[in-house]
């Protein structure tokens, strides 16, 4: 069970809708055209992709860059743009849907269950290694390395402090405060 970090920046990023849900539901559930994350109290309307596809993309994003201290919502924000791209471009939509269907197919064959419910990360990673050279992975990973790590709300979790000129730099804020050497 993942735990929420104490300093994860509070509520959901603006791009996800906050929803009130009963605690105890499955982590990420599909309801109509929406994805609902009960524990983190957010929902995501999916426009072009199948909601299940989006849920699998989110799981895939975590397996590509697994940070146990990052809540699912950071991964959801990071891959949300693929729904927009799919809405704008039918070829992109087909590529993603086919890619996810293929990934699920491989998961069923190897582990008897769709990608999202394969039990161990190491097992899911063997599936990702199989599709690493394919169009889905090659589209998702390079976009994700920017869209995940460029979320300002995620920076405090890594300790990164971001903008500093507005605070007068670090001249009086510990640029040389290291004392353990």
């Amino acid at each position: 069970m993942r735990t929420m970090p104490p300093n994860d920046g509070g509520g959901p990023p603006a791009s996800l809708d906050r929803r009130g849900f009963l605690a105890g539901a499955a982590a990420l559930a599909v309801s109509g055209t929406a994805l609902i994350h009960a524990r983190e109290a957010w929902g995501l309307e999916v426009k072009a992709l199948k909601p299940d596809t989006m849920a699998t993309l989110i799981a895939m994003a975590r397996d590509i860059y697994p940070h146990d201290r990052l809540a699912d919502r950071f991964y959801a924000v990071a891959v949300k743009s693929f729904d927009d791209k799919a809405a704008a471009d039918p070829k992109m939509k087909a590529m993603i849907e086919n890619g996810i269907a293929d990934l699920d197919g491989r998961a069923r064959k190897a582990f008897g269950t769709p990608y999202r419910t394969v039990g161990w990360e190491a097992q899911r990673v063997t599936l990702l290694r199989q599709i690493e050279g394919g169009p889905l992975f090659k589209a998702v990973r390079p976009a994700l390395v920017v869209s995940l790590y460029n979320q300002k709300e995620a920076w405090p979790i890594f300790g990164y402090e971001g903008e500093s000129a507005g605070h007068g730099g670090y001249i009086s804020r510990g640029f040389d405060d290291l004392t353990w050497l």
Partner: protein
Amino acid sequence: MAAKFDLNDDTVVVIVGSGAGGGTLGTQLALKGINTVILEAGKRHEIEDFVNDEWASFAQLAWTDMRTTSGSWRVARDFPNLPAWIVKAVGGSTVHWAGASLRFQPHEFKAATTYGRIKGTNLADWPISSDEMAPWYAMAEDRMGVTRTNGIPGLPGNNNYKVLEAGAKKVGYKEVSTGRMAINSQARDDRGACQQIGFCFQGCKSGAKWSTLYAEIPKGEATGKLEVRPESHVVRIEHDKSGKVTGVVYHDAAGTIRRQKARLVCVAGNSIESPRLLLNSESSKFPDGLANSSGQVGKNYMRHMTGSVYGVFDRPVKMWRGTTMAGIVQDEAGNDPKRGFVGGYELETLSLGLPFMAAFLDPGAWGREFATALDAYANMAGMWIVGEDMPQEKNGVTLDPKAKDKYGMPVARVHFDDHPNDVAMRNHAYSRGRAIYEAVGATRTFPTTPYPSTHNLGTNRMSAKPSDGVVNKWGQSHDIKNLFVSDGSQFTTGGAENPTLTIVALALRQANYIAEQLGQKTI
């Protein structure tokens, strides 16, 4: 007070590019009373426009016009359209640069003589000696306010420096300091002292770091002799029947084609665009491009032997706090072939913010090995390796046979293969870098692959003989008297040092030469 010159004024000096070379040269010519127009492809962003945000700043400042790549370097695979990380804006890459300002060592001007014949290289001696450069280096250091010269104190060491210094001393290195930096450690030249902001690569918000954007160009403009035209992308240099250069064709901000006449043209677009412009300026008289009778335009591309080492510790470092590159170990900079390679290298502190660290630590990597490295981001220290790479004729800039830019001009294709000497030096530096961090308790180290090139050199090199290179010892093209090269592409060899101090010293020296020649009416 900035000048405004007529397009048909054929008495002006036209400079292409406003970076370290072009911005310095244009200012110095104006200070000498010579009417000068700098045409700069990028926009003019002032200090208040800079943002402490890596990707947003990249979008604001970096050159992202199409380029292509080939060769065995990893950049061609990981960043096929981004061979170099340099700036397209007034100030050029001196907006991005970190400020490390080192002189070449004397033997580095005599690379061919010192290193001897090395298979696969096109090594040559510079047509200038260290003694000849000394006064120009001194002038550049004063101009740029380089710390540890002219009585300017060194910068204070930040956390990243403390780790480097402690580790380096533990492994026995002696020449360890916060280096010679063109960053004010105290107020100087109407600019304040470094506030340890830590976004040196994103444009210094305090103006403590020297840049042609605010430390040179405004002084040139104040003379009334300098006009800087931003968003003016030069696509062609023109010449008359005799072969003399007559002016340049450029696209202005609206995309309109303009023709600026000139008495003399200086090319300073950095080592990818400068040869591209000469090649794209081919004509029936010069079918292989301007100034290219030697066939050396675009050849001998160097990018320094680089790489980085990051170390993870069991306690926080917060390397991003404070000056990005104020820390250096110089013990490996000399030439000691016993190490298994010729030439030497410097180790300098470096930090990237989290977004860039994710993109550049191991491009393309993913999974838990990679993610746990970033989980340790706050406990990381970082250093950059910069050493002399070998000039090879096959490395260089050619015109891409297919890809064109938005003006319909062929884009630059950048080819690079490491030379075995580069590989041997990099491996040596990786092991020394790891040893430094392990000596102070690193629990994990990363030998990180070179980034897209920040130092781009050698593609219009200087030579004593016209058959060996593109320009003479003044940066004047061997073939065309009133055509000069004024940027890092003049470098005959790269040395182990960050190049900008040498680019600026050469530009100051060239300004003197041009003023003399114009005065004597020899050009």
